[in-house]
């Protein structure tokens, strides 16, 4: 062991003379260095860190080095065999320190580490201060680019944030789409209502567009259906199918159909903003009336006046008898007109649009005025108003149904402009029809059940729900005898439901009552 002592002595002596390049600095040196030059200081401290880490490794490897000599750093690698016998040599490898090395090292390392950390953050600080003006400019330009016109303005917000929605609340729009099947609370009616359609017809390529009106049934029993760019007429008496017309362009389609009340002429509205009148018996177009700026999604006849509603929000009145056909224009909608119905007595025209408005227009007593002020504008619907139907027994009672965000059927008295009743149907209302024989109405719906609902009026209790369609039931029409309802859905089928069938025994009673009425009156007169 003596030779080690000797060697240590020698190295000590040598170090005394040599300048201390390695090893931890004295505190005063560090302070001095810090104040003089931070960069130089860094290099020094880096050095010392390096070294101290080396120091720390070697003592640890003392044990290990016997087995894995290749891993031990420094001089010990040269004498792998020796290290086993002479552990003291390990302490020699860090040539910098003497025998007081180990306890000193641990303290030094801690201080250094701390210093290293603090000095690094200092360096960063000074970095920002010392940034060149051009670089600063670049940074502001970049942030301006990224944040928009922030430089000229401040963005602030109120520190107290708005209260969040109650726990467990789900977006109602989303709830709508996850509506489950609720057990129907249908009232038992005495009348038998078949739960399955009487007949199912294919309607390939029928457009799934809420804003169109692609189905109508004439008084002669002809049912007109638009399938993409073609119009077919189905004769309900004999089941014959006839193709009436086809659009020329492959992208063009028929957007609405409506039968004249006599049932011999069919009005057709197209995506090319034409309004055509066709003679079905002779399979020929009688006239083409232009004037709209966008597709014609809704049509309705009032005697010889054909009213057409367009995507542009305008409604035109066409007198189909005269050459200068456009006799009136109504501009009360800002978006597509998707519902259009004349009242049975021809006094009012109801129009519903995608701007959630329901307008009631006057007929003008034979004159069809160009106006932009309806008699009434009803704003209660919170979605597009497509489903419109006038009550056959109350001349000024209108039923209207709203789209997905609204889901209500509302009843209006158009003499007074009052909402008489409203009911939440829990589903998009696509179409409404009143029964001719019963005090009932039927509505067709979209998600989730794609059903038809029969309602009693005015109690609005559900009479029946007819399910079967696998996609939303976009259109409905009633057979001329009022017993059957046809529904067209986005699942490309037409279904015929015999839901208003008249019981022959019951049908007699009103007739017999009518005939009985004069008798009683006579009798009272005699007495």
């Amino acid at each position, binding site marked *: 062991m003596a030779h080690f002592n000797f060697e240590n002595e020698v190295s000590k002596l040598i170090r005394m003379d040599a300048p201390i390049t390695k090893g931890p600095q004295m505190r005063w040196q560090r302070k001095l260095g810090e104040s003089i030059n931070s960069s130089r200081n860094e290099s020094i401290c880096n050095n010392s860190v390096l070294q101290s880490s080396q120091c720390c490794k070697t003592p640890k490897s003392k044990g290990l080095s016997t087995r894995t000599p290749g891993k031990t750093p420094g001089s010990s690698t040269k004498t792998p065999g020796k290290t086993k016998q002479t552990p003291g040599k390990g302490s020699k490898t860090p040539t910098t320190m003497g025998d007081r090395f180990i306890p000193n090292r641990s303290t030094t390392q801690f201080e250094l580490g701390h210093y290293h950390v603090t000095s690094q953050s200092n360096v960063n600080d000074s970095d920002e201060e010392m940034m060149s003006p051009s670089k600063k400019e670049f940074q502001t330009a970049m942030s301006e680019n990224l*944040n*928009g016109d*922030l*430089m*000229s*303005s*401040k*963005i*602030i*917000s*109120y*520190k*107290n*944030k*708005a*209260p*969040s*929605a*109650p726990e467990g*609340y*789900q*977006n*109602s*729009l*989303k709830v709508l*789409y996850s509506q489950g099947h609720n057990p129907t609370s249908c009232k038992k009616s005495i009348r038998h209502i078949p739960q399955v359609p009487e007949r199912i017809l294919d309607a390939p390529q029928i457009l799934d567009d809420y804003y169109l009106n692609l189905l109508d049934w004439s008084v002669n029993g002809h049912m007109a259906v638009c399938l993409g760019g073609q119009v077919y007429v189905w004769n309900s008496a004999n089941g014959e199918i006839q193709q009436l017309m086809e659009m020329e362009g492959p992208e063009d389609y028929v957007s609405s159909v409506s039968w004249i009340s006599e049932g011999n002429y069919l009005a057709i509205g197209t995506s090319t903003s034409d309004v055509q009148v066709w003679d079905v018996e002779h399979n020929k177009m009688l006239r083409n009336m232009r004037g709209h700026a966008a597709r014609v999604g809704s049509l309705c006849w009032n005697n010889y006046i054909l009213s057409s509603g367009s995507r542009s929000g305008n409604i035109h009145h066409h007198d189909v008898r005269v050459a200068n056909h456009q006799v009136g224009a109504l501009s009360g909608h*800002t*978006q597509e007109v998707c519902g259009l119905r004349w009242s049975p007595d021809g006094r009012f025209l109801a129009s519903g649009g*995608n*701007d*959630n408005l329901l307008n009631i227009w006057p007929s003008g007593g034979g004159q069809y005025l160009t106006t932009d002020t309806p008699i009434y*504008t009803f*704003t*209660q619907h*919170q*979605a*597009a108003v497509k489903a419109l139907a006038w009550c056959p027994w109350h001349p000024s009672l209108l039923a209207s149904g709203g789209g997905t*965000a609204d889901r209500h059927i509302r009843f209006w008295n158009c003499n007074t402009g009052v909402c008489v009743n409203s009911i939440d149907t829990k589903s998009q209302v696509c179409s409404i029809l009143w029964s001719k024989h019963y005090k009932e109405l039927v509505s067709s719906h979209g998600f989730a059940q794609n059903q038809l609902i029969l309602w009693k009026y005015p109690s609005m209790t559900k009479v029946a729900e007819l399910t079967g369609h696998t996609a939303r039931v976009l259109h409905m029409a009633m057979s001329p005898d009022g017993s059957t309802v046809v529904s067209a859905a986005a699942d490309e089928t037409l279904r015929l439901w015999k839901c208003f069938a008249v019981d022959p025994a019951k049908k007699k009673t009103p007739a017999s009552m009518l005939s009985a009425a004069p008798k009683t009156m006579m009798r009272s007169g005699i007495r």
Partner: protein
Amino acid sequence: MAGVKQASRNAITLKGSTDIVAEFFTYGINSILYQRGLYPPESFTRVQKYNLTLLVTADDELNNYLNSVVNQVREWLYNMTVQKLVIVIKCADTNEVLERWQFNVECDKTVTEDSAPGEKSEDDIKKEISAVIRQITASVTFLPLLESACVFDILVYTDKDLEVPSEWGESAPGIISNSEEVRLRSFTTTIHKVEGMVAYKLSA
């Protein structure tokens, strides 16, 4: 007499204009909250305004929040220091901005309290405002469904030199990186011009 009354009706003063715009913000924000389903629909009540049926929240806490924001904005509208009002709709969990309704406010800074009132009838302004609100209502048809629970925040862009009240703090702009923008109609009171825009995140 009638003529005098008519004249005063068509005159828009700075104070009146401020009230009109602030009122529009109240109803506009309420409409957005209802239409986008941020709060339960049953917590809203119907009111007739601008010839429309609008839904406003009946929640006291939310009302307090909106009132305090709008009242502050009203002051800034009067001083003409406000540039934009932005409603940011964020996902409650990830804080990702999904929708951003921006209303740019342009002020005619030459107008002061005492200057001659502008000429525009209140009815015309109401018509313009109702068109904007109808557009907000109709926007549900194209805006993507907000799948997750969402919170909203109202940001106000003001002049740089404005002294920020203690209840207000600076905020990030909340800009959506991958977004589609739709411009809405604008309306003007001749003193303030408000221009709407909605930006929404494109589904990847």
